[in-house]
C-alpha cells in the first residue's frame, strides 16, 4: 500500500501512469478482497452457540436433524451474505456521493434515500395491508418504494430550475427532504400502537438477521445493476472531483456522469436499506479509511471501498451477534459505536 501514499498529491488530475494505477488497483483489490473473503468465511463459524464444522458438512445426517448445519446455513450464512452485500453497496455508494457532491461529509443517506425508505417501511408497519395480499414481505418492498420516491423528488428538484443537475440544489433538497421525512415518520408514529412503535424503532436501528436467502436474492439484481454502473464512473469522478467545468473541458459529459452517479448510488443505497435497514456510518467511515490507505483515485478507491465495506459490516455483525448473546444487538449500533469515534479521530488527525 506504500505506493498509494507516495503520489497521493499528484493523482487527482489523473497524472500517474496507467501502469502504476493498474498495479495499485491489483494490490488493493487483492488485499481488500482477501480481507473480505476471510471475514465472510470466518463469520459463519463464530457465534453464541458452538458448532462443529465437521458436523455441518456431514452429509450422513439429514439436514432436518442437523442442528449445526441449520445454525450454519439458516442463522449465520445468510447474515454474512446480507452483511457483505449491504456493506459493499453502502460503502461504494458513499464514495460516489462524496465525489458527486464534492463533499467529504456526504453519506449514502445524505440525499434522503434512507429517510424515504424509512417512511415507506414505517407506513407498511403501521398500516399493514391484508397479510396475504402480497406474495413478498411488505416492509422491504415499501422501503424500496419509499427510497425511489425520495430519489425522484430530489432529482426533480435538482433539475427543475435550469439545465443540468445542480449539486447544490441536490444537497439542499436532500437535507431538507431528510428532515421533512423524519417529521413525517414521527407523524405516522403517532398513529401506531406500542408493538408497531417497537418494530419501527427496531427497523431504524438496522438489522441483518434475514433468516432466509430470499431477501438477499431480491436485493441482488438491483445491487448488481448499480455496480455495473459504478464500473463506468471512476475516471469521470476523478475529473468531477476537481470541478464540473474542468471536467467538461477534458471531455467529460458532466450531466450524464452526474445522472449516472446519482441514480446508481441511490439504487445501491435503496437496495441495501431495504435489505438491512438504515445502517449508518458504513458509507462514510469505509471510504475515508480506504482513501487514507490507497489514495484518492476513484479507480482504486471505489472497488477497494466496496470490498472493505463488505468485510467491515460482516465483522460488525459478528460483534452484534456475540457481544451480549443470547440477546442480539442491532448492527447499526455497532457500526455507530465504531464509526463515530473513528470519524472524529479522522477529523482531528487531518488538521
Amino acid at each position, binding site marked *: 500500500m506504500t505506493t498509494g501514499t507516495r503520489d497521493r498529491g499528484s493523482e487527482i488530475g489523473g497524472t500517474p501512469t496507467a501502469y502504476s494505477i493498474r498495479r495499485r488497483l491489483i494490490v488493493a483489490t487483492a488485499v481488500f478482497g482477501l480481507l473480505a473473503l476471510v471475514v465472510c468465511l470466518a463469520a459463519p463459524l463464530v457465534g453464541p452457540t458452538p458448532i462443529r464444522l465437521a458436523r455441518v458438512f456431514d452429509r450422513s445426517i439429514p439436514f432436518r436433524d442437523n442442528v449445526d448445519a441449520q445454525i450454519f446455513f*439458516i442463522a449465520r450464512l445468510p447474515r454474512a451474505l446480507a452483511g457483505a452485500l449491504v456493506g459493499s453497496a453502502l460503502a461504494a455508494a458513499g464514495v460516489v456521493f462524496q465525489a458527486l457532491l464534492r463533499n467529504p461529509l456526504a453519506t449514502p443517506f445524505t440525499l434522503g434515500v434512507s429517510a424515504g425508505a424509512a417512511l415507506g417501511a414505517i407506513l407498511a408497519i403501521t398500516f*399493514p395491508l391484508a*397479510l396475504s395480499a402480497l406474495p413478498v414481505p411488505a416492509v422491504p418492498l415499501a422501503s424500496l418504494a419509499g427510497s425511489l420516491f425520495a430519489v425522484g423528488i430530489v432529482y426533480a428538484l435538482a433539475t427543475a430550475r435550469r439545465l443540468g443537475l445542480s449539486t447544490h440544489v441536490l444537497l439542499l433538497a436532500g437535507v431538507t427532504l431528510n428532515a421533512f421525512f423524519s417529521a413525517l415518520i414521527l407523524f405516522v408514529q403517532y398513529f401506531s400502537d406500542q408493538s408497531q412503535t417497537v418494530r419501527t424503532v427496531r427497523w431504524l436501528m438496522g438489522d441483518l438477521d434475514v433468516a432466509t436467502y430470499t431477501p438477499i436474492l431480491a436485493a441482488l439484481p438491483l445491487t448488481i445493476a448499480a455496480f455495473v454502473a459504478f464500473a463506468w464512473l471512476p475516471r469521470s469522478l476523478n475529473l468531477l472531483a476537481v470541478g464540473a467545468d474542468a471536467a467538461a473541458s477534458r471531455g467529460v459529459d458532466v450531466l450524464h456522469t452526474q445522472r449516472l452517479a446519482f441514480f446508481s448510488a441511490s439504487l445501491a443505497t435503496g437496495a441495501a436499506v431495504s435489505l438491512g435497514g438504515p445502517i449508518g456510518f458504513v458509507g462514510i467511515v469505509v471510504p475515508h479509511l480506504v482513501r487514507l490507505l490507497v489514495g484518492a483515485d476513484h479507480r482504486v478507491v471505489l472497488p477497494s471501498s466496496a470490498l472493505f465495506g463488505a468485510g467491515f459490516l460482516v465483522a460488525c455483525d459478528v460483534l452484534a451477534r456475540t457481544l451480549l448473546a443470547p440477546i442480539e444487538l442491532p448492527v447499526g449500533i455497532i457500526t455507530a459505536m465504531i464509526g463515530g469515534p473513528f470519524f472524529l479521530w479522522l477529523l482531528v488527525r487531518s488538521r
Partner: protein
Amino acid sequence: MAAGTESIGTPAPPKLARAPHGERRRVACLALAVACLAACASPVPDRGDSSRPVTRIVSLVPAATEMLFAMGAGLRVIAVSSFDHYPPDVERLPRVGALLDPDMERIIGLRPDLVIVFEGQVELREKFGQARIDVFVYPRPTVSNILQTMRALGRRAGMPAEAQREASAIEQQLDEVRASVRGLPVPRTLLVIGREPGTLRNIYASGGFGFLDDLLTIAGGANAFGDLKRENLQVTTETILAARPDVIIEVVASQPWRPADIERETHVWDQLGSVPAVRNHRVYLLMGDAFVTPGPRMVQAAPKMAEVLHPR
C-alpha cells in the same frame, strides 16, 4: 366498609412475601409512590375527599378500564384511552390520548377525581399532582400484580367486595388450570410476542417476567428463555435453533386474520426443521386480546395455552 381506613398506601398483603424479590420491591415502590402522590395531591382540607370512593375516573390504561367494568364500576369511568375497545360500552366514552399522547387539557376539563396512568408516565403524574388530581399507577403487569391492582382499584372505586369477588374468581380459574396440568410433562416453550409478518425477522419473545410468562407457567409450560428476567427480548434464529423448544406459541392480538393467513404464518417456522416444535408440528398461533391485554380477560389465555401445551 369504613372508607376512612382504606388507602392505596396500605402495606402489601402477606401473600406477596413469597413473590420474587424484584417484584416485591416494585410493589413496595409502587405503594410508596402512590402514597407520596396521594399525600402531595391532596392538601389537608381535601383529605376527606381523597379517601371517599371516586366517581369520575379517567383511565389511560385499557387493562384497568376492563377491570373497572368487570367489577361493575363501569359507570364511574368518564373517559378512556385511544386504545380502549373493550367492553363495547367504552366506545361511547370520550378518548383522551394514551401512553405517549395524553391530552392533559381535556382530562382536567373532565374534572376527574382519579386518573389511572402507566408506571412510565412520570411527568404526567407530576402534572396531575400540580392539578391536585389523584393518580392511580398501573404497575408492570404480572399475574399477582394484576390481581393486586384489581383489589386496590376496587377499594378506590368503592367496590371492594365486587373487586375481591372478581379477583378470587380469576384466581380460582387459574388454580383449575394449574390443577389440570399437574403431573404432566412440562414442555420447553418459546413464547413469541412479536415478529415481522411472513418472515423470521425481528422475533421478540417473552423472557421470564410478566403476565404471559406467569400464564405459561400456570398452563404447564417452561419458558425457553425464562432465565432472562425481562418482559421481552429479541431472539435470533440461531438462539432458537440452539434452545430447541418443544413447543412454539405465538400470540397476537385479535386481527381480522383469515385461516389462510394463520396457516401461512404458522408455516413460516418450517425452515427451522431441527427444532422439535417445528418437526412435531407443535407451532401454535393463539389469537385474542386475552394474550396481549393484562386485564381480567387474561384468565381466558391460560386454558388455551394449556390446551396446546398438553393436547389430549
